[in-house]
């Protein structure tokens, strides 16, 4: 459980002409993957860092599970219960993978055995074989592997809430897609509340349950990727996400977000994985000459169906 509520959050930095954040109201439901999206300098990082109190608001309030994080909550305690991932520089270079991941468990004084098995469990979870990676230093790993360790480290204390600030920002495009896939899978198992900052529109559309679009310190739209693409609030949003480019939209929306729930006993012919894009679905429909595809999860279990009509109705 972890809901977050931002109430009229304002942040002014000394010497800035306008507030970095100007009255943000935002509610995040428990277990949702929320992406904060917007051009550089719009206040995404500032908003994120307020949740673990690396920044304090000038005015307004932030509540986690309906409790203000500023009233009588110990800041160190708060931070240990929130996972935090930044670009790969955030790993401690003088510590092995195991030591990096063990930080929060050690801070929380877990018994050694429990920490050890937790490290292995987490490494498995992020697809890094523990025996091969436990003893490595960050410098001995690729950027993508480092970032997996970053994610594992954030999960170590089993927090309900995870903050991620452009975690895949410095990673090449192919590896990045890989990491996004892994994160989606992981989130499907764990159902954490995730606040994820990016300025990459494709990344936002792929990952988010809901996207919060910021512009110059203000929230301009908050909705599902589909809503953002098909009903942009204004020209700024429309331009930012490329809302009039239908091919692009098809390429970014996951099949599972528009599929119809499964009707019992229907035949299964052609299947498609739930994280594939509508573009792949469309192409599969054409190629297979079927009227519908059965959407399946990673265990090949059917989840729903998708048809030409579903796709046509979903895009503007």
């Amino acid at each position, binding site marked *: 459980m972890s809901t977050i509520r931002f109430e009229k959050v304002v942040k002014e930095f000394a010497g800035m002409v306008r507030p970095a954040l100007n009255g943000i109201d935002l509610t995040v439901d428990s277990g949702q993957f929320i992406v904060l999206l917007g051009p550089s300098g719009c206040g995404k990082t500032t908003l994120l*860092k307020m949740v*673990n109190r*690396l920044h304090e608001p000038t005015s307004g309030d932030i509540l986690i599970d309906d409790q203000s994080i500023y009233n009588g909550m110990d800041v*160190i*305690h*708060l*931070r*240990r*219960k*929130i996972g*935090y991932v*930044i*670009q790969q*520089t*955030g*790993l*401690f*270079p*003088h*510590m092995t993978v195991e030591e990096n991941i063990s*930080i*929060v468990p050690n*801070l929380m004084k877990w018994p050694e055995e429990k920490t050890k098995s937790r490290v292995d469990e987490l490494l498995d979870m992020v697809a890094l074989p523990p025996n091969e990676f436990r003893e490595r*230093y*960050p*410098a*001995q790993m690729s950027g993508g592997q480092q970032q997996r360790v970053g994610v594992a*480290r954030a999960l170590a204390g089993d927090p309900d809430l995870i*903050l991620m600030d452009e975690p895949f920002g410095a990673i090449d495009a192919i590896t990045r897609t890989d990491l996004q896939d892994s994160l989606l899978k992981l989130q499907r198992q764990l159902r954490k509340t995730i606040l994820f900052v990016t300025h990459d529109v494709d990344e936002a559309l792929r990952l988010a349950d809901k996207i919060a679009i910021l512009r110059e310190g203000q929230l301009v739209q908050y909705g599902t990727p589909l809503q953002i693409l098909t009903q942009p609030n204004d020209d700024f949003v429309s331009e930012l996400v490329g809302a009039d480019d239908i091919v692009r939209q098809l390429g970014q929306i996951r099949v599972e977000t528009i599929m119809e729930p499964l009707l019992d006993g229907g035949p299964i012919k052609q299947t498609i994985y739930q994280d594939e894009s509508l573009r792949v679905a469309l192409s599969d429909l054409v190629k297979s000459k079927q009227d519908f595809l059965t959407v399946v999860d990673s265990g090949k279990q059917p989840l729903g169906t998708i048809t030409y009509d579903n796709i046509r109705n979903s895009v503007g």
Partner: protein
Amino acid sequence: MDLAFTTWEYAIGHLDELRQATTDHLILVTISLVISVVICIPLGVWTSRSWRKSKAIINAVNGLRVIPSLAILFLLVPYMGVGLDTAIIALTILAMPPILVNTDAAFRTINPAIKEAAAGMGMTKKQILRKIEFPLALPIILTGIRTASTEVIASATLAAFIGSGGLGLYIQRGYAMYQLSILFVGAIPIALLVLASEALLSSLQRAVQSYKSV
């Protein structure tokens, strides 16, 4: 060949004295280095926290560096008289700049993102200092200690001139008696001590930053 032989003979003939002089030399060097480290590491951490302090201290210290060690020593004598404490203070002043400057730089240049990640994970300021900043700064601090150590071992020679013993004894004596061999009895162990301290500190340095080059 002749010189080597007379040097050797002189050393053998004064073995006990030589041993004592080497010990004195080492004690002088160690005490000065330890005092410098104890003063300069906390001071460097403190100055590294603000640009103004940092700049002020670096300028002051670089000013100090302009004064040659010999001058420091003899500047102190009128105030403190001759003796061991005068030598130690002079050598400490000499050792401080490289340690202080390097500590300041080491802490100031740690990637702020790393510190922020640590804070964001719920480490206290003290824990960040001890577990993150200090280990990351250590290789650069050790470089400073290495420089200081070489300087102090060489300069401790001058302590003999103000009656504080050490290997400078032989330099002083050899100089007074116009005997090169006696001079060498002091100079060779000093060179060896410099090499030994270089070797020791550089292997220590390699050990504490093994994570970088693997």
